[in-house]
């Protein structure tokens, strides 16, 4: 009976709080001027968020220029990236102070007219001495698909699970391709 009484008290308290909330919020059907309504609306939704919109814009601007720099530097334009993490540590491993984490990464973007989509997995194993990180799976989808030289280094990169080699080769290949195109254009009559 005590627990039930406690629940009654808790429910009554919650009901009182909810009634107050009902009273605080302006019911839209109540007669209020447009200005008052918008003022209350500003109060209701996170007012801090509204003020920091300017900060957001400047932060975004700064990061976007960082992005633009990296894109120019590497020759690679990454548009999207997402990652998932899965903890594979078993109870046996925890006892031996070993931690195993599997990361699944997905990124896509383009290098001039070539678009790519990568899905790869990184397995991280942490034991007492060191942390080891290795790419355990690499899948690359390219567009255009007909270019044989492109497919060649793509399959080599996939085989060796060599991300850096893929991006560097892609950049040089596209540069060379663009250069060749310009040269041929130059000689067109």
């Amino acid at each position, binding site marked *: 009976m005590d627990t039930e009484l406690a629940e*009654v008290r808790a429910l009554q308290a919650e009901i009182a709080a909810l009634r107050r909330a009902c009273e605080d919020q302006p019911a*839209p059907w109540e*007669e209020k001027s447009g200005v008052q309504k918008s003022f209350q609306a500003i109060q209701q939704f996170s007012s801090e968020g509204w003020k920091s919109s300017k900060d957001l814009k400047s932060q975004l601007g700064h990061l976007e220029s*960082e992005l633009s*720099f990296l894109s120019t530097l590497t020759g690679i334009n990454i548009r999207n990236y997402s990652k998932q993490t899965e903890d594979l540590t078993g109870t046996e491993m925890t006892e031996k102070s070993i931690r195993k984490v599997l990361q699944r990464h997905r990124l896509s973007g383009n290098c001039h007219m070539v678009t790519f989509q990568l899905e790869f997995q990184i397995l991280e194993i942490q034991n007492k001495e060191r942390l080891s990180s290795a*790419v355990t799976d690499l899948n690359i989808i390219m567009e255009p698909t007909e270019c044989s030289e492109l497919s060649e280094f793509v399959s080599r990169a996939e085989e060796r699970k060599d991300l850096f080699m893929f991006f560097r080769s892609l950049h040089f290949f596209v540069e060379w391709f663009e250069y060749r195109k310009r040269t041929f254009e130059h000689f067109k009559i």
Partner: protein
Amino acid sequence: MEQTNPLRPDGESKGGVLAHLERLETQMSKSCKQSEEPQSVQAQEGALGTKIHKLRRLRDELRAAVRHRQASVKASIANVEPNLAVEMSEQEVLEEKLENVKAVLQAYRFTGLSGKLTSRGVCVCISTAFEGTLLDSYFVDLVIQKPLQIHHHSVPVFIPLEEIAAKYLQTNIQHFLFSLCEYLNAYSGRKYQADRLQSDFAALLTGPLQRNPLCNLLSFTYKLDPGGQSFPFCARLLYKDLTATLPTDVTVTYQGVEPLSTSWEEQRASHETLFCTKPLHQVFASFARKGEKLDMSLVS
């Protein structure tokens, strides 16, 4: 956008909710008065259960009413102050964009080159790896001025940073960084192979692995059958090309007094070729596998 009458037909249903709530509350206060009268314990418990049930219902109805009002306010703002609503969602759009940009910046480390803008210029981070195994990262902090300068860095002293900078830094930052990437990745890869040899195949080594900091000169003695009678081979690997992870000069010599038999000579020569064409630790992995096969054949 035309302004709609705030007193929408929906108001009736809301009035309905309020009225309903009022009815519930009246019921509640009635049952409260009832429970104040003296009753048997059983009757009291029964009344308590019913009271809880009713209270729960009232609470749920109030929760729904609060949620409903919140949604209506939002919608009415869109009607009354469309700009305000637009600005609200503009913020959500900004926040989403910010999250996306942050994520993409993180992703650049997978290209091998990433970085951050600094007050002075830019700090570039070079990631290294060897055949899928991610290794150390190094940074170079550049000051944007004429001439471009390296403020500070974490590049090991035996990497020819000044040479590479002298060649490319002022004319082509990209070339400078790509070149440095090559040297650092190659060094990282050589170091990784030597480390793996020491840690994984110590059983096949008959002496300590000798190496220089740049890991481009390695010297070691090894035996294919550790417990066996044969003499060890002595290998010397020189990596003249500092941007490569495979040696350019390999010599495998035999440390015995008597001349080698033909089969052993063949082995010695094949080892020289192996060290030139495959990563060091993978060569030793194949030695270890052969050794296992040998053991198996002895047992069967």
